């Protein structure tokens, strides 16, 4: 256990060497200091661990700064309701918040909306044909909401799916960017999210460089979208590597 946590707690940030050159012109208009003292293009420290729940076929725990999420995966198992025969398997996603997840009790985001977003983000990455007639259930529980919840849930869910041995085309990594004034902030905390002008979230499969889900809110010009997308994709590939190493470690652990 101790060995696992020490190596997995690594920080990641999108190709620092490339971004450093870009940073000065962005910061010129205001000396922005982020609440947790990070750089504009620096992600929160990520901690990932598989096997958080014993009874599930696969599970994962993710902690990105203050955002803490547990995802468990059940199945493939028999589809519960009287559903029609289908050649491809079904994916069922459910996101819920604990009552103490947010500063004000019970004031949590639309969980139904998040569930459908999670479904769309994962659907493209799972080889549904590999488990016909059956259903895979993905249950996510947000223990603490500290900003960027959906990206954390999505990344954690893909780790749990891999842990459960569900066939995937690739791991799914997700990162969001907030736009405040002229600045783009990667991996925003809730404080930053509450006064953002716009947000962009990308869910992608890093080694295939394909996007499974993308949402944009607020007003964006095409060049800004381009910049934001590049930032997210860079961070996604870093996060993908961390997720991969976490899985490898879990797999090699018992043999030692």
């Amino acid at each position, binding site marked *: 256990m101790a060995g696992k946590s020490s190596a997995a707690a690594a920080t990641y940030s999108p190709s620092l060497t490339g971004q450093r050159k870009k940073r000065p012109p962005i910061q010129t208009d205001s000396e922005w200091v982020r609440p947790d003292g990070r750089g504009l293009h620096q992600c929160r420290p990520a901690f990932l661990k598989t096997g958080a729940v014993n009874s599930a076929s696969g599970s994962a725990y993710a902690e990105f700064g203050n955002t803490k999420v547990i995802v468990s995966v059940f199945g493939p198992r028999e589809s519960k309701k009287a559903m029609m025969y289908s050649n491809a398997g079904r994916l069922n996603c459910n996101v819920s918040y604990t009552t103490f997840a947010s500063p004000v009790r019970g004031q949590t985001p*639309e969980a*139904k*909306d998040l569930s*459908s977003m999670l479904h*769309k983000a994962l*659907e*493209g*990455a799972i080889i549904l044909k590999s488990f016909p007639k059956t259903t895979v259930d993905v249950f996510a529980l947000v223990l603490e909401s500290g900003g960027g919840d959906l990206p954390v849930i999505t990344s954690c869910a893909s780790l749990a799916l891999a842990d459960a041995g569900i066939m995937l*085309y690739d791991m799914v990594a997700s990162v969001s960017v907030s*736009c*405040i004034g002229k600045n783009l902030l990667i991996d925003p905390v809730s404080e930053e*999210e*509450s*006064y*953002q*002008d*716009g*947000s962009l979230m990308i869910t*992608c*499969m890093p080694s*295939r*460089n*394909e*996007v*499974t*889900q*993308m*949402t*944009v*809110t*607020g*007003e*964006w*010009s*095409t060049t800004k*979208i*381009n910049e934001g*997308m590049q930032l997210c*994709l860079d961070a996604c590939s870093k996060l993908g590597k961390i997720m991969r190493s976490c899985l490898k470690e879990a797999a090699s652990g018992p043999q030692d």
Partner: protein
Amino acid sequence: MVGLSLGEQNFIKGGISQDLRTDGRKRLTYRPIFVETGIIPQASGSARVKLGVTDVIASVKAELGRPNPSYPDKGKVSIYVDCSPTAEPTFEGRGGEEFSTELSSALQKCLLGGKSGAGAGIDLSSLCIVGGKVCWDLYIDGLVVSSDGNVLDALGAAIKAALSNTAIPKVQVSANASSDEQPEVDVSDEEFLQFDTSGVGRHYIADATTAEESQMSSAVSLSINRQGQICGLMKRGGAVLDSSMILDMISVAKHVSEQLIKRLDSEIAAAEACDDDEMEL
């Protein structure tokens, strides 16, 4: 969802690759749009939009309420979409519920912009009457009457038309706390949204019908305002997309939206003129 034979599927796909779709449209042409405003007398504003066979109604109701303590100088807008099972049998029960939450969350993302209110289609601060005390609550309700693909675009157009038709009373707060109401003052809504659905193989099409939607691999819904800025983007459908393809779709959508905004403006103006004539009679 749609039972199509293999021949029909190939016909649709073949037509799209040759830039001639089953109903004779080109890839990026919209179906004829029909707009009617002021159809619900009980609402502050309402509109009905027909896009081919797709038929939706949007209504706007305004109520006085208290602003959210975190945003004391802003009004509140809530958007709900109802998919009636009369439109399509699959809308009955959970199927309809899922589709309506998807539609309402997409519309909310595009219309209400970022949390700070930047880039929003509706100017929330114009809905504030007394900071921190009283504001307008706008309830925007959409109803899908008949569905033949591209419901989101039709709803977007209907909401735009309903908002331009909306008149909310002007409220003045005087010292002795009696409010004086004068009707017929318009709510301001400056920017507006257009959606564009694309997908199917390697080609992009706009305004897909249900049959075409069943054949597409993935769809992207974009909302673009008059200045050509992107106000919202949602990817729908399961299949993956290359990031360069998304940028490509954005530029295609920008081009299509310019024409659509023009057409919609003239349709709404015509519908409102028609509405005024009826009032005089």
